[in-house]
């Protein structure tokens, strides 16, 4: 039988975690051991998750490549496929194609400090890198994570946030928008850009990774630039409507670049060169 681009791996859901309102995390394991042996990916890549008879949907791989037994994906229910996915239970079979896209150039970051800036559902793509960095131990310098969401309920990976905050290598700042807090809330209150300014991570020998809603990215970039981060030290992952994931279907084109093939990881410098169609 000939290889085909579009035939997915079969994956079994082994764990379902309710992260927040309408946000779920699935842990997926390969049904066929041969597939598992052949599969490898790197931080920053994404895949096409499909539910048979409903369709395919694109999310990043949210687990770290250092954990080889499974992959995880986190998604918010929005359309036909994600709604169907949200109805899935442990033991159901999903399809997965991937990994697609380029990767964060983590080899070049050895010894550097890393700042993660995420908003809302923008944390999952960075979580892959965060765990990768933490699992690799002393390869990297100090880690700063700034994460914000509308309200406490909408924070994802609540347990892992606790775990990270205990790690001495990590400075974690979790913030919620004003009005989203409750009396027990001990974290920051305010928008992500303001929190970055308050924490003011040093820009020397530091890489910044940013992912979140467009407006947050825009304002945070200004703050990061003010703090002295240069554009080619700021990385972001773009997302566009995607259907094939391999640069064929044409949906994700931004100018002549395909987000799925040339991205999703872009430096801020590259993003500034793109036309405003993302």
């Amino acid at each position: 039988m000939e290889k085909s681009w579009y035939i997915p791996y079969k994956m079994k859901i082994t764990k379902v975690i309710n992260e927040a309102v309408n946000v779920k995390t699935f842990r997926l394991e390969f049904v066929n051991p041969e597939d598992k042996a052949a599969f490898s990916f790197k931080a920053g890549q994404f895949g096409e998750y499909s539910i048979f008879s409903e369709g395919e949907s694109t999310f990043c791989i949210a687990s770290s490549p250092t954990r080889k037994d499974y992959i995880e994906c986190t998604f918010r229910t929005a359309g036909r496929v994600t709604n169907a996915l949200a109805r899935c239970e442990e033991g159901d079979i999903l399809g997965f194609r991937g990994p697609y896209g380029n990767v964060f150039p983590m080899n070049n970051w050895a010894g550097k400090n890393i700042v993660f800036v995420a908003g809302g559902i923008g944390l999952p793509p960075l979580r892959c890198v965060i765990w990768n960095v933490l699992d690799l131990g002393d390869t990297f310098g100090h880690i700063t994570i700034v994460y914000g969401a509308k309200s406490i309920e909408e924070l994802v990976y609540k347990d892992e946030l606790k775990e990270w905050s205990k790690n001495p290598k990590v400075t974690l700042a979790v913030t919620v928008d004003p009005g989203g807090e409750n009396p027990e809330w001990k974290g920051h209150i305010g928008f992500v850009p303001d929190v970055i300014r308050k924490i003011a991570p040093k820009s020397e020998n530091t890489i910044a990774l940013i992912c979140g809603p467009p407006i947050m990215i825009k304002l945070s970039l200004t703050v990061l630039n003010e703090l002295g981060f240069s554009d080619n030290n700021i990385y972001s992952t773009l997302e566009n409507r995607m259907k094939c994931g391999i640069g064929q279907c044409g949906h994700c084109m931004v100018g002549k670049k395909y987000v799925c093939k040339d991205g999703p990881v872009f430096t801020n410098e590259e993003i500034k060169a793109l036309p405003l169609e993302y």
Partner: protein
Amino acid sequence: MEDFEPKLAAFVCNWCTYAGADLTGTSRMKYPSNVRILRFPCTGRIDFMLVMKAFDSGVDGLIVSGCHPNDCHYTSGNFHAQRRWVVFKEVLDIMGFDTRRIFFTWVSAAEGAKWAKVVTDAVEELKKLGPYSEFKKILLKKLQFPLDNKTADREIKTEPVIS
């Protein structure tokens, strides 16, 4: 088609026909078990696309039923529905869709016997007409499982190209 058992769906209004069908049951009247009843708030809610969806999912016939005119719980829902069905039936007629398979009726909450008769007549009529294979032919999805035995037996290894 001696032993053909038609699949029949019924879109009924909550206030009249559903209660009427209930009455049929409580009065121990017998009617064919081919019918699957779906309850709607009002006949005015029965969008024509829902009728199309029913045929997509493989029914051979459909009963659409609600309160008699002037009896609508929401005053005018069935009047609007009545006009819609006239137009919808015309579209389907022009397109050559078999409208004999859609049974429009009014059944009130007191007409348990009428409901039994409607269903019996519908099933009889559908048995005469046979399965609606004309329409099922154009569906991309196959409605029986397995789609063909050869396919299901031949599980193939999946090897996407990794880029």
